C-alpha cells in the first residue's frame, strides 16, 4: 500500500517530464509520475516507425489469414466429420484455412513475439546509452518506476494491437458469414486474445531482460531474435532428433509408447509458442476433450462426441495459462533485480 501512497505523494509534489519536447497538455497535474511515464512510453512507441512497420507486417499477415479462413468457410469446411454442424462456426474464423496460408492462430503465434521483441529490445540500454536514463531518474520518481513503466506501456500496447487484430477478425467474420457469435464464442475469443497478450508479454519481458543485461541494443535485439528463431524453427527440429533417438521399437508394449509420447509432449511444451498454440487451439476448438494424444479405449467407451463447456475448456488449458503467466512474471522479476542492482551513471 505504501508504494502507491508514495506514488501519489510524488505526483502531487512534482510534475516530472522525461522529454521536454513531449510535454503536451495530455496529462493533468494530479497524474502520478508512473502513469505519466507509461503514457510517454506508449506515445513514443505508437509514433515510432518501427512500430508502424511491424504493425503493417502483422496486419498484412492477419488479413491474409482471414482471407484464407473465409475462403475455407465458403467452401464449407466448418467441420470435417459433420459438414452440417454449424456449432462454433464463428470460431473457425480463427482456426480454418484453405491450405494456401496458415490460419490466424499460427500467424499470431509466429509473428506476435516480434511485437514483444521489437518493443522491448532497446528499452533500457538505448536510454542508458543516450544518457536519458540518468536524467529521468534524477527526477523525483522511484527508480523501479522506470522499468515498470516500460513493462506496463509495452503490455498495454501489445494488448491494444492484439485486441484490435482479434476484433478485426471477428468483424470480418460477422461481415462475411453473417452469423453473430454466441456469448460463449465471444468469451472464448476474448480469453484467447488475453492469452495472446500474456504470450507476447512473455517475449516483451525476455527482450526487456536482454536490454537490461546487454549494453548494446544490437546484441539484445539479436539475442531476442535468436531465441525467437530457436523456439519457432530449431526447437521442432531438435525435438525430431530426440524423438528419433528415443522412439520405442514397434514391438514394445503400450506403456513404453505412452511414456515416450508423454516425454515428447513435455519437451515440446517447454517452448512457449507450443504452449500458446496448444492452449489457444483447445479454446477455439471446443471439441477437444483432452490434450493427451493417447485416449485409451476405456476412456473412449460410451463417450459422446460433444463440445466441452467454456469453463471445462478453460480448466483444460489452465496449466498452460499459469505457466505462461509464471514465465512472464519470472522474466520480469529477473530483469527487475538486474536493473535495480545496476549502477546508473550520467554519461560524461
Amino acid at each position: 500500500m505504501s508504494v502507491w501512497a508514495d506514488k501519489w505523494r510524488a505526483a502531487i509534489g512534482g510534475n516530472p517530464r522525461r522529454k521536454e519536447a513531449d510535454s503536451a497538455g495530455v496529462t493533468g497535474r494530479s497524474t502520478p509520475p508512473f502513469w505519466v511515464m507509461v503514457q510517454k512510453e506508449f506515445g513514443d512507441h505508437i509514433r515510432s516507425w518501427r512500430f508502424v512497420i511491424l504493425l503493417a507486417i502483422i496486419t498484412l499477415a492477419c488479413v491474409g489469414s482471414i482471407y484464407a479462413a473465409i475462403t475455407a468457410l465458403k467452401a464449407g469446411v466448418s467441420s470435417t466429420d459433420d459438414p452440417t454442424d454449424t456449432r462454433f462456426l464463428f470460431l473457425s474464423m480463427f482456426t480454418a484455412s484453405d491450405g494456401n496460408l496458415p490460419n490466424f492462430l499460427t500467424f499470431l503465434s509466429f509473428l506476435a513475439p516480434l511485437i514483444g521483441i521489437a518493443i522491448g529490445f532497446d528499452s533500457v540500454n538505448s536510454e542508458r546509452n543516450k544518457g536519458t536514463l540518468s536524467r529521468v531518474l534524477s527526477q523525483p520518481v522511484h527508480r523501479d518506476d522506470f522499468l515498470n513503466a516500460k513493462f506496463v506501456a509495452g503490455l498495454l500496447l501489445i494488448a491494444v494491437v492484439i485486441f484490435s487484430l482479434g476484433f478485426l477478425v471477428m468483424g470480418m467474420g460477422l461481415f462475411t458469414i453473417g452469423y453473430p457469435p454466441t456469448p460463449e464464442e465471444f468469451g472464448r475469443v476474448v480469453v484467447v486474445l488475453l492469452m495472446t497478450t500474456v504470450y507476447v508479454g512473455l517475449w516483451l519481458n525476455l527482450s526487456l531482460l536482454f536490454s537490461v543485461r546487454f549494453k548494446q541494443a544490437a546484441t539484445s535485439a539479436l539475442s531476442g531474435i535468436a531465441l525467437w528463431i530457436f523456439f519457432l524453427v530449431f526447437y521442432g527440429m531438435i525435438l525430431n532428433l530426440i524423438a528419433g533417438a528415443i522412439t520405442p521399437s514397434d514391438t514394445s508394449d503400450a506403456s513404453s509408447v505412452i511414456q515416450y509420447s508423454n516425454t515428447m509432449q513435455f519437451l515440446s511444451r517447454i517452448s512457449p509458442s507450443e504452449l500458446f498454440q496448444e492452449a489457444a487451439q483447445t479454446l477455439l476448438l471446443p471439441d477437444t476433450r483432452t490434450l493427451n494424444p493417447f485416449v485409451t479405449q476405456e476412456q473412449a467407451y460410451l463417450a459422446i462426441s460433444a463440445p466441452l463447456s467454456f469453463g471445462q475448456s478453460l480448466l483444460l488449458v489452465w496449466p498452460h495459462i499459469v505457466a505462461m503467466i509464471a514465465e512472464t512474471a519470472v522474466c520480469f522479476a529477473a530483469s527487475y533485480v538486474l536493473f535495480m542492482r545496476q549502477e546508473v551513471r550520467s554519461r560524461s
Partner: protein
Amino acid sequence: MKRFTGSVRLIMTALLCLLAAASAAPAYAAGGGKVYTPYTDLSAPPGETINYSVDLINDSADILTAAVGFSAPSGWTYELTAGGNNIRQISVKPNDTQTMNLTLHVPLEVEKGDYSFQLSAGAFGTLPIKVNVSEKGSYKSELTVDQPNMQGHSDSTFTYSLSLNNRTASKQTYALTAEAPSGWDGKFTVDGNGVTSVDIDPGASKTVTLNLTPAENAKADTYKVAVHAASGSSTADAEVEAVITGTYAMTLSTSDERLSADVTAGHERKLELVVKNTGSADLTDINLTSTPPANWEISFEPKTINTLKAGESKPVTATIKASGKALAGDYVVGLTAQASEKSADAAIRMTVKSSVLWGWIGVLIILAVIAGVYGLFRKYGRR
C-alpha cells in the same frame, strides 16, 4: 409276426379279388365279346375320383364294334377315355383285347349309401358297377380352429391355428378377414408368409395361422374376434377369443425427469431415480442394472424391488462414481430396470467435469509469483 399277418391279408385280398372277378366281372355278350374290370364294388368319399380300367375282350373271329355308354345319376360325372381321348365307340380285333378307362367323379353333395351304375358296351354286353359313398358330402367351405380361446398379456401375441377346408367342387380363392377390435392387429400367415387370401383346390385344406396383436393399452377383458374366409361362392366363419389378463408397463426416469447430470472425474454423484409401474398388472423382481463406461462404478439403493403394484412408483437412488481417468465431456450411462415381465431403460447423459483442484493450485502458483515480485519491489524498489 406282423409281416406274416400282412402277407396273409394280401393273399386273402388277392383271392377275394379273384373270386369277385370270377363270379361277377365277366359279362358274356351274344357275339363272343366280353367286358371286364377287376373292381366293381368300391367305397369312396364324396369328391373322390374313381378310375376303372375296363378290358373289352373279343373271342370271336370277327371284328366287334360297339357303342359305349354309361348311365350315371344326376350330379355324378364320368369320362370314358382310351388312348387319351374321349370315346363313344370302340372296335376290337378278333381274339384281341382293348382297354378303355372310365373315370367316375363322386359328387361333393351326395348322401351316404350305395350307388349302382351300368357300363353298356353294345356287343360286349353291360358291366354293373357299384360305388359305396362312405360319408355324407357337404359341398361347402369349412373353417375350424383347434384352440379358439387363448389368454395372455396386452404385449403378447396370440397365435391361432385355423384349418380351412374347401369342400366345393371347384378351386376357391378365399379372402381372409379378422374383425379385430380397434387398435388390434390381425395378420394371417400361410406357410410362414403373410397373406390376405389363400387358394385351395377342391377337396383340399390348408392351415392358416392368425397372429393377433392386442392394442397397446388393451384393458383386461375377453375379446371375441370373428374370422371370415370368403370366396366368390362360399364363405366360412369362425370365432376366436383372446383373454387379456393385464398389461405390463414400466418407466424408469429421474425424479425430476431430467436425463442429464454432471459429475466430477473420480467423484460420486447421486441420482434420484423413480421406477413406475404404468401397467395394469403387478410387476415382480425388478432388478436395477447399468451399462457404465469403463471403470465407472454404479450402485443402486435398493438394488432390487420385490413387487411393484400397478400404478405405484418407487424411488431408487443411483450412486454414479466416475472413473478418475474419464475425459472431460459427455458420457452415456445406461440404466435398466428389469422385471421378469418387462424392462425399462433410461440413458443418462453424464457430463464429466475435470477436478478444479489443479485450477486452484494454478491460482496459488500465480499468487506466489505475484508475491515474489512484490517481495522484489519491497526489497529493491524503494531505497
